[in-house]
């Protein structure tokens, strides 16, 4: 699974890096981005999925 934070939609709510800091990071202004090229290791999809589903701006694309 791969995740990607769309910078055009992200408003810096920070839900992704709050819920799954191992997969998402904040920049100096609070906007989110994916770590490790967005690659989610097998077996950890649920946490990444929950982070994506909690984004109020629906800014996180998930590729299965």
């Amino acid at each position, binding site marked *: 699974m791969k995740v990607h934070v769309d910078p055009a939609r992200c408003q*810096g709510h920070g839900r992704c890096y709050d819920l799954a800091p191992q997969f998402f990071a904040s920049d100096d202004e*609070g906007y989110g981005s994916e770590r490790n090229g967005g690659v989610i290791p097998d077996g950890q999809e649920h946490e990444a999925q*929950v982070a994506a589903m909690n984004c109020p701006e*629906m800014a996180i694309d998930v590729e299965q």
Partner: protein
Amino acid sequence: MTVDDRFAGDADERFTDRTSHGRRNEPTIGPVTDWATDFDHLDDAWAADPYEIQDDLRQRCPVAHTDRFGGGWLPTRYEDVAAVAYDSDRFSSRSVVMSNFRSDVALAPAGGTPPITSDPPFHHGARKLLLPAFTRTAIAALEPATRAYCHELLDGLGGSSEIDAAVDYAQHIPMRAISDMLGFPPEDGPEFAGFVASVLEGINLPLTERLEGIGALFHYLSAQIDDHLAHPREDLTSYLIDAELDGEKLDAFHVAGTMGLLLVAGIDTTWSAIGASLWHLAGHPGDRERLVAEPALLPTAVEELLRAYAPVTMARLVREDMTWGGVEMKGEDWLLLSFPAANRDPAQFERADEVVIDREVNRHAAFGLGIHRCLGSHLARMELRVALEVWLERHPTFSLADPDAVTWSHGQVRGPRRLPLKIG
């Protein structure tokens, strides 16, 4: 002391003068006849329980209207609230408090208190200046002091068997946090409560009285700016005085307006969220006991309490006459942007009208949507979580001392203003 011409002369008089020009309407008073055609967010019924009214409107008339306040609209569906929040082309943020006063068009695009009153493209730069101070990482550094202060407040109340959690606890926590960030004396807290009341709750006062209150706020800010010019320090006030936008220092109105925004918006919103959360837990022993037993659930619970009791409603001004959502809007009509109503839309949330304390997926809009996402959301979340954590640790058992004695604020920020709790 360096002479800074921007703040020379009677700065506070200029601030007040500038914010007092605009369009005024005669207040319409009297009870609401029909919420779909005559809504009034200052009505006692709305303050007591807006959710029942919003649920009813969502079913029979998704966009309600009123002639009060010079005309305005109230969408209640999540999708409509989101559409407005994302549409800064057709809805302006020049005035964000729906009242009988619309700020002067000449204040656009910055508005009186940038960036909340700013529209694009000005908005972007004004907001960008503030973002670094409010990131989750920057806010995390304030957590130990916030926790210590919560304990100090409860220490000061000793072994009381009854505590007014709104008056003696909730309100003080955000006041201390934001005054520390701005570099204001902590003992000025009680004055801040008066400013908040004038700006946000004073919308039912005669306009002259409300403007006097706003004048007092700018008088205070002006004195703080002077003090910071004479004694610069590491805080947001000195930061704003020195900050540059497009290579130029901010004008005096921008500095004072942003300081006023941070002070007012940072206080009663979080005060309301802490109070509403404690009110809920006082009346729902099952949720309270679960959080005492499982403190790790608190961050999830905080999101659900924010969804169910979102304290903040915003407002916009319609830019030009248009048909929107099946209704005919006029330029300068108000649009009351109810995030609380959006958060309880059953089309968006399962069991929307229930507090599900362990709700895993919670795409709520308590901090708004789009470019005006609450700048202080990380601060508010930290304060709310720490305030509840400390309270539950110190007073794991509590209940409403007298449900009828609880009073709720009127206007666009909703939370308990009196909340007597029985301890033990």
